[in-house]
């Protein structure tokens, strides 16, 4: 019975992980940019929800609606004004650029919010749901469902909307897309905006479950990276599978080896995947 509970915990965690990784994977896949800022965007989204709840009583699920346009705008502007300038440069430069931006953002967050850990505690608490012997807190369950809904929304944007189809086209063949009249620079900016939006929108969900601090970004970034490699790069279903797998592996790993080895375990998994199945579990280079 313990195993069922651990499995359920892992899947709940995995749903959130999928949401963290989907935007990161999109940016990496389309722009070939590793966005080191991704983790700090998640934390910033968490702070947005925290302060909206503490100061104005806005429920974290509602602050997602504020986070979506705000983070899309930040991401769009950042790509438009800075990253587009060196998008064709070697990998090292784009990586270093986003790293520098991340140092600035996390330093700014320390100044603005102090380095204390904060967690949003709903008042009154939502209680728990029991499925047989498996007990799940309702806030976690709801957060997971919302995370999956957000990930599904990204999937729909990419597969149904005009801009989404253009993003996919640019990923498949940039030159051909440009010849068909797609404005590649704008598509890049929109892609980065979507990535930032996913990060910012998953922040409010995470702050209900984990305490956040301005320096918590790299932990989320590491998870996003592992998930991308697990599931395959630049695909939403890949991020979903990768997220669920990582969530379950971490849950069982904590049970068997102790929680202090969670990072070692997931990074060992990462290195094994990189060496033996570099295209991820889904095993195709495709998109959507």
């Amino acid at each position: 019975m313990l195993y069922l509970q651990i499995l359920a915990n892992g899947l709940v965690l995995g749903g959130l992980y999928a949401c963290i990784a989907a935007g990161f994977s999109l940016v990496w896949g389309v722009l070939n940019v590793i966005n080191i800022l991704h983790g700090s965007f998640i934390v910033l989204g968490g702070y947005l929800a925290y302060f909206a709840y503490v100061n104005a009583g806005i429920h974290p699920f509602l602050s997602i609606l504020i986070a979506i346009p705000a983070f899309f705008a930040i991401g769009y502007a950042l790509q438009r004004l800075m990253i587009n300038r060196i998008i064709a440069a070697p990998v090292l430069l784009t990586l270093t650029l986003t790293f520098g931006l991340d140092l600035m953002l996390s330093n700014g967050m320390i100044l603005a919010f102090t380095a204390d850990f904060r967690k949003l505690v709903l008042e009154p608490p939502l209680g728990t749901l029991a499925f047989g012997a498996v007990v799940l807190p309702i806030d976690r369950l709801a957060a997971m469902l919302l995370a999956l809904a957000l990930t599904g929304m990204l999937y729909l944007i990419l597969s149904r909307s005009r801009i989404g189809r253009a993003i996919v086209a640019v990923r498949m063949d940039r030159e051909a897309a440009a010849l068909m009249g797609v404005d590649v620079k704008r598509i890049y900016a929109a892609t980065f905006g979507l990535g930032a939006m996913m990060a910012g929108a998953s922040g409010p969900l995470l702050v209900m479950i984990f305490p956040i601090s301005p320096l918590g970004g790299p932990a989320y970034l590491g998870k996003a990276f592992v998930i991308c490699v697990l599931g395959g790069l630049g695909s939403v279903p890949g991020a979903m599978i990768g997220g669920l797998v990582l969530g379950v592996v971490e849950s069982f790993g904590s049970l068997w080896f102790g929680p202090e080895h969670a990072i070692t375990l997931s990074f060992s998994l990462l290195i094994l995947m990189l060496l033996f199945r570099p295209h991820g579990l889904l095993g195709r280079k495709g998109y959507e």
Partner: protein
Amino acid sequence: MKRDATGAAVLFALVALLPLAGEAYWMRLGTIVLMYGVLAMSWNFIGGMAGYPSFAVAAFFGLGAYTGAVAQKFGLPMGVAWAGAGLMAMIFAALLGLALLRLRGHYFAIASLVVAEVLRELVNAATDLTGGGMGLNLPIPAMASIDAQARFFFYAMFGLAALTFAATLVTTYSKLGFGLRCIQQNEAAADMLGVDTTFYKVSGFVLSGVFVGMAGAVYASWVYYIEPPDVFDVLFSVKAIVMVLLGGAGSVFGPLIGAALFLGLEELVWRNYLEVHTGVLGLMIVVLVLFLPKGLLSLSRRFGRWRPLA
């Protein structure tokens, strides 16, 4: 090569005179700049010459620091502990390189980045050997005075920097350096033309690890207290990269110049803007990448070319 060697001899002779200035603050800065120089020159072997974006500097540094510290804890003399740390970093780099250098681009970058995280977790968990999160105290070297101690570690780091520079110089003008530059330009073509790319890349990676490992051990003996987040700090990797970018990647003197400039800037920022110093460091990185992606040396070269037109 002769010109580079002469220039370096003059430079190092000047630096060796620094203790005459005597002040403890300058000795400390001198020791740090030499250490930064070792990190930057080391990264240059794999990142500058071969073009592999390695973030493994922090891993080698921490590994070296802990190897040296644990060796000293068991009573080995300082020099043996430092050499042991170099050897450990060398073996680790060779094994790691064989596995990771098959990856390219972002995959290699991130895989090398997480190595430091994994090592930190392992060191944290191995409390019996390393003290875990409590850190590790090293024996305080028995020396006549604090000044003598400062001078001793300055010259230790100086010797290591000179060694690293000699290795850079020899590599640059040897077959290995040529092979690494070929790999940077076009690995597949280099492979086809008979460059043993695996051997060359692993050699470059080993060179990028061994001196950093020793620098870590010297650092540990110097500050005689280390803890995992301190020596496995990812900023060591990032600083090494920024210093090389600042000075110009792949060149002989670039990393050294970058290290000196970087330390100067870092010290200014630390002193004047303590609360926002990481933010200012980030801003420096952003400005550098956006406006001077080929380093400050490219500026002088550019002005050099402009002169005849004027």
